[in-house]
């Protein structure tokens, strides 16, 4: 009985303190808001927002609701995070491996890159890419086409748009290719386990993913054409490109700076992971006759990944949270659109900030869950 009580009392006190602190702040906020005549409520979310946003993945203009504006901001945040994470991962792995390269020039260059970008504040890097690098870009009318169809200008990057016919057939062919690759892999594993034969799975996979979509063009009636951006004159010295897809310079600057910054941390995770695998493992693998490629793929990487994944997850979270610096350069992310403009137009500070905080929390937790699941999958399975 006594022991039970001893265990329960500290818990009760903790709960009480938390409730009291929370209660105090709620009460305080309530009193102050009442004194100042501020209403509390989420009803504003369905009101017309009456402001426009520069760049949106879903259809949006000022006649839509504040909730729609919230979605626009959220999707823009997710967009920049996803692109940033992909680029940062690829770059991070390359640089991390490069730092271990026996080639002096390569490993010194990689080390320089890591030290340089890791030690400059991110906001400063964003400003650099946006204001300094942007100023150096040509005006639309002066831009030279890259590969004949890309235009990188001060107003953004203009790329050709794809115009598909029978797009669904093309997508089906890709899905079919993926399914058959999975089936072949399972079959190949069975063959290896029962007969000890190795099938050239990689080459078969590459073949499938090219041949099936190609067939859809030849016999499935799929066709693809490009819409190339064209210069349009707005005034004597004012031009823009029309047609095609335009990526705003804000998106490019933000993605670039986030990716370059986070890649340095990922590179260090990768280096640590590879170095964390015992030398004996490689030697043992080599001694049973595996070639260097197989050593890396079958022995080193599976063990290194276990060290790499947890800290890299942290970096993914950081990148997502850092994307809120977008507000500094007019990229319409969640903070700029919702916690910025919408907050100012409605004055609903507590409501909007709480929604924004919860949203970032949910985003971070989703990434954590996903990465933990992956981490568990590659962890040592104890039998």
């Amino acid at each position, binding site marked *: 009985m006594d022991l039970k009580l001893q265990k329960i009392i500290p818990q009760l006190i903790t709960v009480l303190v938390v409730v009291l602190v929370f209660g105090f702040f709620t009460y305080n906020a309530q009193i102050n*808001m009442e*004194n*100042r*005549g*501020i*209403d509390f409520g989420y009803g504003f979310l369905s009101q017309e927002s*009456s*402001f*426009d*946003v*520069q760049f949106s993945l879903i259809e949006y203009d*000022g006649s839509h609701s504040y909730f729609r504006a919230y979605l626009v901001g959220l999707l823009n945040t997710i967009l920049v995070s996803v692109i940033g994470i992909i680029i940062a991962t690829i770059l991070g792995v390359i640089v991390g491996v490069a730092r271990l390269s026996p080639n002096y020039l390569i490993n010194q260059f990689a080390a320089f890159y890591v030290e340089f970008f890791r030690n400059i504040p991110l906001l400063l890097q964003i400003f650099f890419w946006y*204001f300094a690098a*942007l*100023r150096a870009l040509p*005006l639309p009318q002066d831009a030279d086409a890259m590969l004949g169809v890309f235009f990188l200008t*001060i*107003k953004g990057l203009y790329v050709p748009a794809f115009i598909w016919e029978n797009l669904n057939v093309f997508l089906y062919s890709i899905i079919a290719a993926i399914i058959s690759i999975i089936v072949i892999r399972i079959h190949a594993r069975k063959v290896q386990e029962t007969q000890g034969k190795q099938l050239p799975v990689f080459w078969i996979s590459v073949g499938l993913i090219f041949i099936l979509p190609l067939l859809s063009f030849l016999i499935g009636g799929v066709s693809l054409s490009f819409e190339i951006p064209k210069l*349009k004159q*707005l*005034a*004597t*010295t*004012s031009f*823009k490109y*029309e047609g095609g897809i335009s990526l*705003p*310079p*804000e998106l490019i600057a933000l993605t670039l700076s986030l990716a370059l910054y986070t890649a340095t941390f990922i590179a260090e995770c990768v280096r640590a992971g590879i170095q964390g695998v015992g030398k004996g493992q490689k030697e043992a693998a080599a001694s049973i006759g595996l070639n260097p490629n197989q050593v890396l793929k079958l022995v080193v990487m599976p063990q290194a990944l276990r060290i790499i994944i947890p800290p890299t997850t942290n970096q993914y979270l950081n990148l997502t949270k850092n994307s809120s610096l977008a*507000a*500094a*350069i*007019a990229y*319409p992310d969640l903070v*700029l659109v919702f916690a*910025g*403009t919408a*907050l*100012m*137009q*409605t*004055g609903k*500070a507590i409501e909007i900030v709480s929604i924004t905080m919860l949203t970032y929390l949910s985003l971070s937790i989703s990434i954590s869950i996903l990465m933990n699941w992956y981490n568990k999958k590659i962890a040592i399975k104890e039998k």
Partner: protein
Amino acid sequence: MFKYLKQLTSLVAMVAVLFTFTTETMAAKKSKTLKNTQKKGFVRCGVSQGLPGFSNADAAGNWTGIDVDVCRAVAAAVLGDANKVKFTPLSAKERFTALTSGEIDILSRNTTWTLSRDADIGLTFVGVNFYDGQGFMVRKSSGITSTSQFKDGISACTNIGTTTELNMRDFFNSKGISYEPVAFEKADEVVAAYDAGRCDTYTTDKSGLAAQRTKMSNPDDHIVLPETVSKEPLGPVVRQGDSVWEDIVRWSLNAMIEAEEYGITSANADSMKTSDNPAVKRLVGAEGELGAAFGLDNEWSLRIIKQVGNYGESYKRNIADTGILPDRGPNELWTKGGILYVPPAR
């Protein structure tokens, strides 16, 4: 006799009750904000992060501008010294939160008076110290001389959290022009992006355009288009719920404008005490008990005029002489063809 005594006691009691009641309302008149300000010894004033002519700090950290002068006027009235002001530079996004949370007591930051701001978010606008309207700036070389030459796809740089963002949408929608809004948090970033060529036009209040033009790498390359697309009455704001403080700020501004109307300047204010005009005498504290209503002394307005000057002096010093807007336009007295018209101080 006993009966009278009883009546007398009740009368005394009633008078006593009445008296305590009146002293209490007098005390209540000393508003919380006023009391705090007098205790602290300075007025807490929210201003912009740097808008020449309105609120701008020089290299030594001295703030000047017509918005700054409103806060200085209140400091002169309440504390007797126009320099006893603590300025807090705020972005458009932060300004209302800073005021409602009690970080500042006056927001004098080229803020547009609108219904929803006044009614919704715990603010009270006390007056207008600059009548403005939204306009557009373009590069001279673009050959654009009127907003009617705007074409589909034009990109427009502006600030977030301002009425500008909403007016811009209304304007382009009514003209049926598609546009790309590029909205930054700070004015300096807007100017930098427009200056670099990111946007074809820069839109904000016309006074703001005129002021920011002076910050461009080459001011003569840019022109402000003649059209005005919205009404932007700019003025000081206070927190809702302290009507005495609200009155002090309102009448500090009104006193500056009325002083100009009666020709009272910082130079001649003292000699105006012997004027024949009772309105002038009231304003310089030589007649009437105007200050008592706020819990201030009678020379509150005299101090404003002597230390800060009248509205015309403030305008000339901050906006006309700095070359931002030499022409007063609507911000001229009603007696001289403008729309500055304030209720009488009596």
